[in-house]
């Protein structure tokens, strides 16, 4: 059905097999299995492999151009609609890629060996496209409420998606690094986007400093791996390590360790998680959901690529590291979530704990573990984007409240909204008939298959602890409204007033720029905009559907092209 598109020349050809290798002529270059002559600048570009990236790039540039042409106060809702449209095109492109690839075997690098065109990456392209659509739709009403509407947020969202896609597809450490930076830098700005909320600025700055630090560590790791193996391309590194035994593999292992640190930071694995609660709490709420979905997914895609494709031979060395990270992440995430008073912060720790399960799947280093982890990530974006969209609705203007009390009595005020939130909470708790149960089941099963009973026990214990606070939120939703004294809920976060004044003169010269509207939510029902409602409905429906049928796990299994 999509066959005719093959005829279009501009889509390029999938690259021929390069495993046979070729000898590089003196002064020549090895590109994609083609051995170019010295001085040749020809490179075959398989455009089909980067359709979603192209769509997003062109979409972002067109939108920027439009914003210059259109009057300054353009029709509200135009930019989110366009962004969602671009996301939809990218999604369509990714789906086309999925069928274009068919059940091809092992992945082949294309475009100079810089990216892979395989179903593993297409799963992430689909995932990221969905996150863009959801992110744009759920951000619109929030940004308008906060008086932040404008095109920039959407451009940043598209750009970070490009970075994430490049990470997922990356075929070399440099491409991975570049994708990571594109994504992260856009996310730093998104975290700081609510400039009048000092918490948002704080989130952005902390994310930026720690992110740059971890990027530098990551980059040093890349350099060390490059030195040890002579290449930054995953395939070539893998081939080299398969064919050669390095007498002194210290530099290689050091590089591997630092790369794990850098990517572990992005996926918020303990002990590199410190930024997560602060940034998730401070960032504008819909962006938090988007960030949690995309950064985590892309970070894990990168980890899978590096550890299995490039360093698959080093399993004995990296599996214990990931094992320990998984245990710590599961434990600390669950335990610390219990002690939280702020809903966003609690969900941040919850997302840390969820990353632990994906790490369990990763450290199994098996097809089962990988497909379990892919399933986990794919279903998780619906849950986390939905959760933060609900929180965003409830907060009131200026994110006046996000303490646990804001959700009290929601079941009575807005049964549908509460029901949707309940689905998300149950999914995160891993209750059967939601996607969360199957996801946890698969990764734990992968651990059991590798004979790691203790890890399975720890993971289940963490799930048991975590169930406690998810259930607590759920119960809070369905308990009655307390008769509170009037002013109690207006909890202006201390940071908003005090953070930057410590040790300084009292704020004498007020600038209009840090003014913030703080308007706590009313006790009655909050309005649910159509776009957010659609996101919530689709997310909840998917969460249930993926929990009771097997289509999503089939999808994840078919995307497991790494083993």
């Amino acid at each position, binding site marked *: 059905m999509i066959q005719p598109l093959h005829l279009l020349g501009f889509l390029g050809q999938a690259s021929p097999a390069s495993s046979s290798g070729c000898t*590089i002529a*003196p*002064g020549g*270059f*090895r590109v994609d299995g083609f051995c*170019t002559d*010295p*001085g*040749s*600048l020809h*490179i075959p*570009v398989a455009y089909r492999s980067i359709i979603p*990236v192209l769509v997003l*790039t062109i979409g*972002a540039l067109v939108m920027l151009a439009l914003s210059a042409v259109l009057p300054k106060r353009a029709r509200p809702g135009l930019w989110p609609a366009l962004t969602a449209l671009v996301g939809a095109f990218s999604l369509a492109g990714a789906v086309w890629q999925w069928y274009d690839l068919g059940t091809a075997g092992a992945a082949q690098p294309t*475009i*100079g060996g*810089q990216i892979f065109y395989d179903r593993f990456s297409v799963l992430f392209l689909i995932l990221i496209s969905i996150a863009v659509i959801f992110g744009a739709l759920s951000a619109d009403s929030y940004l308008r409420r906060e*008086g932040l509407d404008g095109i*920039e947020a959407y*451009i*940043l969202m598209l*750009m970070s998606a*490009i970075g994430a896609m*490049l990470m997922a597809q990356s075929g*070399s450490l*440099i491409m991975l690094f*570049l994708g990571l930076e*594109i994504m992260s*830098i*856009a996310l*730093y*700005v998104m975290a*700081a986007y609510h*400039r009048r909320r000092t918490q948002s600025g704080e989130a952005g700055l902390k994310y930026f400093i720690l992110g740059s630090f971890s990027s530098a560590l990551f980059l040093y790791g890349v350099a060390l791996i490059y*030195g*040890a*193996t*002579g*290449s930054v391309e995953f395939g070539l590194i893998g081939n080299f390590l398969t064919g050669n035994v390095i007498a*002194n593999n*210290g530099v*290689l292992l*050091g590089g591997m360790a630092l790369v794990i640190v850098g990517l572990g930071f992005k996926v918020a694995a303990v002990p590199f998680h410190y930024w997560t609660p602060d940034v998730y709490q401070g960032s504008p709420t819909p962006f938090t959901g988007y960030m949690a979905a995309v950064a985590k997914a892309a970070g894990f895609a990168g980890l899978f690529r590096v550890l299995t494709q490039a360093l698959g031979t080093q399993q004995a060395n990296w599996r214990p590291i990931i094992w320990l990270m998984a245990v710590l992440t599961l434990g600390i995430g669950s335990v610390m979530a219990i002690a939280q008073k702020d809903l966003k912060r609690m969900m941040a720790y919850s997302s840390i704990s969820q990353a632990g399960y994906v790490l369990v799947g990763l450290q199994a280093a098996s097809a089962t573990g990988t497909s379990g982890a892919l399933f986990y990530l794919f279903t998780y974006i619906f849950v986390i984007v939905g959760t933060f969209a609900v929180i965003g609705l409830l907060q009131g203007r200026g994110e006046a409240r996000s303490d646990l009390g804001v959700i009290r009595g929601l079941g009575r005020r807005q049964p549908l909204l509460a029901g949707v939130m309940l689905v998300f909470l149950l999914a995160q708790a891993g209750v059967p008939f939601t996607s969360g149960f199957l996801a946890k089941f698969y990764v734990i099963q992968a651990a059991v298959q590798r004979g790691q009973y203790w890890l399975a026990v720890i993971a289940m214990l963490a799930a048991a602890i975590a169930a406690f606070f998810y259930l607590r939120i759920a119960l809070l939703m369905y308990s009655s409204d307390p008769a509170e*004294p009037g*002013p*109690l809920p*207006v*909890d202006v976060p*201390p940071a*908003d*007033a005090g953070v930057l004044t410590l040790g300084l003169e009292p*704020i004498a010269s007020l600038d*209009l*720029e*840090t*003014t*913030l*509207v703080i*308007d706590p939510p009313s006790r009655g029902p909050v309005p649910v905009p159509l776009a957010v409602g659609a996101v919530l409905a689709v997310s909840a429906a998917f969460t249930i559907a993926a929990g009771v049928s097997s289509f999503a796990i089939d999808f994840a299994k078919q995307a497991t092209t790494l083993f």
Partner: protein
Amino acid sequence: MDWAVYLVGAAMILTGALGVILLRNPVHCALMLVFTMFGIFLEFINQGADFLAAVQIIVYAGAVVILFLFVIMFLGVDRKEAIGAERLRFQRPLAILLGLVALVEILALSRVDHWVSGAPAQSGALKGAGSNVAKLGQSLYTGYLLPFEMTAALLVIAVVAAVVMSRRHQPSAGEMSPAAQKELRESHQSALSASDPSLAGRLEAPSE
């Protein structure tokens, strides 16, 4: 000759780096950063990376450090930082210990001089006929074509970010200045402590 250049470069790099982390005035720090850049420049030259050396100077000394200085001046933060005082307990000794431990670990991993494993060149030989610039160019436009194109995304982000972060905001009705926010919070807290002292205590930020 090699050794001389190396040693001069190394001295510049280390002096500059130590200067960045030890000097109290941020302007001086920025200038010491330039010093380090020049040291790197020398080491690049010494290793035959002529083109990169030039780019290094143009980008870092010409753009990055200037930007730093510009921001320092713009913010008016060219005053001294009290380096002696450290509010966070154990931060400084642990930081120095950590730096040393990490360095020792890297050296231990490389056994000081076993850095490479004899892997062959994969992207094309650096030595041999042809200029350094030509080789770089060819590699950049063939094997590294996609990353090269994608750096465009970075630049777009940089532009958008600068616009977002520096745009002035038009205040709208109902907005609250930080002072007013603070006042509101205090009034709530006094009201709270009047009604229930234990609650008010808990509303306060937890003890540090």
